[in-house]
């Protein structure tokens, strides 16, 4: 039970401090809202402020429980002294009692189910990997570190900063409960918006359509951030409407704060800022510049810290995206392209025409269902007949415009409130229809019913986890039973010393271990390590092509290899470049200057005499690519040999010589190609190189490339099995 207490304390304290911060801000700005609106808007604004505070503490390496507790206590004390919790605001018009009698039991049923799930040990895929993995890491390290090997650390993490605050007191489940708080706030915001705009009963129905939607309930009861971001975005929408109604400029900083917090919580929430600015210009036309600048300034306060952090740590403010614009050594362009492509086309989805049924009923491929009722979503177009409906549809389109970038079901959550409200507006015109639809939705979304029609492995709430939530069943026992990643994480924890790092090819439960996990796909460094490890396994990656550029012996200041093919998907890779004179290889001197474009940072891989490393363009080959060597003084050269692999057969090379400063002369167009023997000892060379780069362990899943090879040829690899769990094998590099 004490653990349950700490969990609840962590969550409640975080939410209370958020609300207190928000009330203080709204009080300071003199914002006037209806009584029912004050709490959810205080939560949203206060969350933005608390998130920023935690960011600053993390940047200052001050993430200590005492500091967080003192800061929270000071905020609560200030709010109490300034009577910020006291409200004299008028109430919104009441909702029909009959509807409340119908809906309240539903709210209790789903609310308790979700609350218990959130309080139970965290078992969500992304929650236990990067959302809380990074939170745990920041707390362990007392703040941000120069983490360049984890692309998820480069995303904006506004909501995760709230998780971090709660985590300090109640660990994983406290963080999930903070998200649950936003699951309550979102429907409340929707109802308030509807009441203010005189369609309260419809708004109430819409709030239930959203709140009981299976993917929303589960996401909101997990350490994800989609529901929180949707709530903040809805706050922007609702507040813009209030500003339009009241024309109070006091609302503008809050509008900007929430719009900025949206982006500061998730890149894909940037439409919130566009919506806010667009709305101002739409409603004020030429006179919108000053309000817009106020909004922009407030938003910048929430956005800039993340962009600056990324600029400093990974040399790209919007990492892991736009790496062609912000060239950097931490995220490869090819990874960005492949990642974006995979988010637009989930494996298993045969056609985009399957999306409607997948996101409403099946839920396996796109991870979760909205509920069958949302098959009626096209009817929301009928809401265009009213001005409120048009505004909802416009917002839904604006906030849902980024769905194409990631077609997972939960990426529909930001636009779901507007679709639901528009649907409810339409159905409320027909007496008695909306409550029936809400009841049908409730029945179809109830977990035991849901599992009867959705795909067996759809992401959904499955069981009522009361004993686990109250920790009557110990957390470790529950997680060992329910969540294989936990057992793998504990195996890592027990088998590796505290300062060791492990390389793996797929994410595992990093939130449950303090060891450093490097996932091969999550950074350029990981890509490089993965390539090193795969070279012994994939003959096509091995340096078996010898491309020789022979030319009359002459003094040169340098040589330059140019790639000349265009329009090939192949990357240009070079394992080794060897310069020759008088029939012998020129020893590489420390005063040689090596250059490459693109990926200048990797050029040394083509000059290290290692068979398992290679320089790669990490993007499709183009004629602007080159590798060059420059000497401090002219020296005789008669040949250049490039050792490369068979997976880049579509690339072509030409050789230039630097005959005088800035004077490159083409030396060879048609090189001679022969084959080299596949080198021996590659496995050992690979593991030794990886060890030199700070990785002492390998975590290999049974479905990973070469898993049998690792198991059967441990002596060749120079590795020893130290643990095995749920299809994973942990090897120590000797």
């Amino acid at each position, binding site marked *: 039970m004490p653990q349950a207490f700490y969990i609840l304390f962590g969550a409640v304290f975080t939410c209370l401090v958020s609300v207190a911060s928000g009330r203080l801000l709204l009080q300071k700005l003199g914002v006037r809202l209806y009584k029912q609106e004050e709490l959810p808007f205080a939560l949203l604004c206060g969350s933005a402020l608390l998130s920023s505070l935690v960011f600053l503490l993390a940047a200052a390496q001050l993430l200590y429980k005492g500091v967080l507790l003192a800061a929270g206590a000071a905020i609560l004390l200030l709010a109490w002294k300034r009577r910020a919790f006291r409200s004299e605001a008028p109430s919104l018009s009441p909702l029909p009692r009959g509807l409340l009698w119908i809906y309240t039991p539903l709210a209790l049923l789903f609310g308790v189910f979700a609350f218990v799930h959130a309080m139970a040990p965290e078992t969500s895929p992304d929650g236990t990997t990067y959302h809380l993995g990074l939170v745990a890491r920041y707390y362990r390290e007392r703040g941000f570190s120069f983490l360049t090997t984890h692309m998820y650390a480069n995303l904006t993490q506004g909501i995760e900063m709230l998780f971090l605050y709660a985590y300090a007191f109640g660990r994983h489940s406290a963080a999930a409960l903070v998200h649950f708080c936003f699951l309550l706030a979102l429907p409340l915001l929707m109802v308030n918006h509807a009441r203010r705009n005189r369609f309260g009963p419809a708004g109430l129905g819409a709030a239930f359509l959203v709140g009981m939607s299976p993917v929303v309930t589960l996401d909101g009861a997990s350490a994800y951030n989609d529901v929180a971001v949707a709530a903040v975005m809805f706050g922007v929408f609702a507040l813009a409407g209030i500003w339009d109604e009241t024309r109070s400029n006091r609302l503008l900083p809050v509008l900007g704060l929430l719009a900025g917090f949206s982006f500061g919580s998730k890149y894909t929430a940037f439409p919130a800022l566009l919506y806010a600015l667009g709305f101002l210009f739409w409603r004020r036309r030429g006179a919108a510049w000053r309000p817009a600048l106020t909004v922009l*300034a407030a938003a910048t306060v929430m956005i*800039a810290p993340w*962009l600056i952090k990324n600029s400093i740590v990974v040399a790209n403010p919007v990492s892991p995206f736009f790496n062609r614009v912000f060239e*950097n050594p931490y995220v490869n362009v090819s990874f960005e392209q492949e990642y974006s492509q995979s988010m637009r086309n989930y494996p298993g989805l045969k056609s985009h025409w399957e999306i409607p049924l997948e996101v409403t009923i099946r839920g396996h491929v796109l991870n979760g269902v909205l509920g069958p009722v949302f098959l009626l979503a096209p009817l929301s177009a009928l809401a265009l007949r009213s001005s409120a409906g048009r505004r909802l549809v416009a917002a839904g389109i604006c906030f849902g415009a980024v769905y194409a970038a990631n077609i997972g079901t939960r990426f529909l959550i930001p636009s779901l409130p507007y679709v639901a409200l528009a649907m409810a507006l339409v159905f409320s015109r027909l007496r008695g229809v909306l409550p029936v639809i809400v009841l049908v939705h409730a029945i179809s979304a109830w977990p035991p019913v849901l599992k009867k029609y959705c795909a067996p492995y759809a992401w959904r709430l499955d069981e009522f986890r009361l004993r686990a939530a109250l920790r009557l069943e110990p957390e470790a026992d529950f997680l060992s039973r329910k969540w294989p990643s936990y057992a793998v994480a504990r195996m890592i924890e027990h088998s590796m010393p505290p300062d060791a790092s492990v390389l793996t090819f797929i994410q595992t439960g990093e939130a449950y271990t303090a060891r450093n996990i490097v996932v091969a796909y999550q950074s350029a460094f990981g890509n490089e390590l993965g390539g090193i490890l795969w070279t012994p396994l994939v003959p096509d990656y091995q340096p078996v092509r010898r491309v020789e550029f022979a030319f009359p012996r002459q003094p040169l200041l340098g040589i330059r290899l140019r790639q000349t093919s265009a329009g090939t998907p192949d990357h240009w890779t070079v394992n080794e470049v060897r310069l020759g004179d008088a029939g012998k290889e020129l020893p590489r001197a*420390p005063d040689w200057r*090596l250059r490459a474009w693109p990926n200048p940072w990797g*050029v040394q891989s083509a000059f290290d005499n290692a068979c398992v490393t290679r320089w790669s363009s990490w993007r499709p080959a183009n004629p602007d690519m080159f590798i060059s060597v420059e000497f401090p003084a002219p020296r005789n050269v008669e040949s250049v040999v490039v050792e490369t692999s068979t997976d880049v057969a579509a690339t072509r090379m030409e050789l230039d010589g630097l005959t005088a400063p800035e004077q490159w002369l083409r030396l060879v167009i048609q090189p001679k190609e022969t084959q080299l*023997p596949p080198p021996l000892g590659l496995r050992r060379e690979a593991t030794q190189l990886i060890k030199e780069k700070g990785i002492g362990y390998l975590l290999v899943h049974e479905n990973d490339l070469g898993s049998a090879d690792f198991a059967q040829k441990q*002596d060749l690899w120079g590795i020893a099995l130290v643990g095995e769990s749920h299809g994973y094998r942990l090897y120590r590099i000797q």
Partner: protein
Amino acid sequence: MRYSILPAIVLLAATGCVNMPETYAPPMQRLPQAGPDTSKLKHFVAMNDPMAMEHILRDVNPSLEGGMWRWTGQKPTFRFFLPTTRHLSFVMDFSLHADTMKQTGPVTISYFINGRPLDKISYDKPGEQHFEKAIDPSWLLKGSVNVASAELDKVFIAEADGAQLGLILMRAGFRE
């Protein structure tokens, strides 16, 4: 209001302040795990390797065709130097010509390592073939020359000059 663009300026300044070197020196040079290559003989040879003939003991035509391959006779035999013997497989990449198979019909090839029979496979269709089989380390001599051969049960015999044509060989040898 005039300070409202300050954060944006700070952001832009921070974005531009990352300094990375333009050129690099050659890094530490690595040594091959299999040790320095002191022998003319290798563990594997492609037919367009300038040293290919050093590895051929018999029944491989010295003439390189198409810059890539050579005709073999009935029992192409090679010698390879093996610095190590653990987890090695014998590999041979070759092609069976449709015209020769018209005369020979299906061809059976027996593979031998240091005189021991490794495998026997029948090929009934023309085209590219890849043979690969793991070898017991006790069959091999570490740090020494090892002999590998492939014996065809029948070869094409040219009516005009009686020349024997077996396989179109691209590469052969040992790999881990």
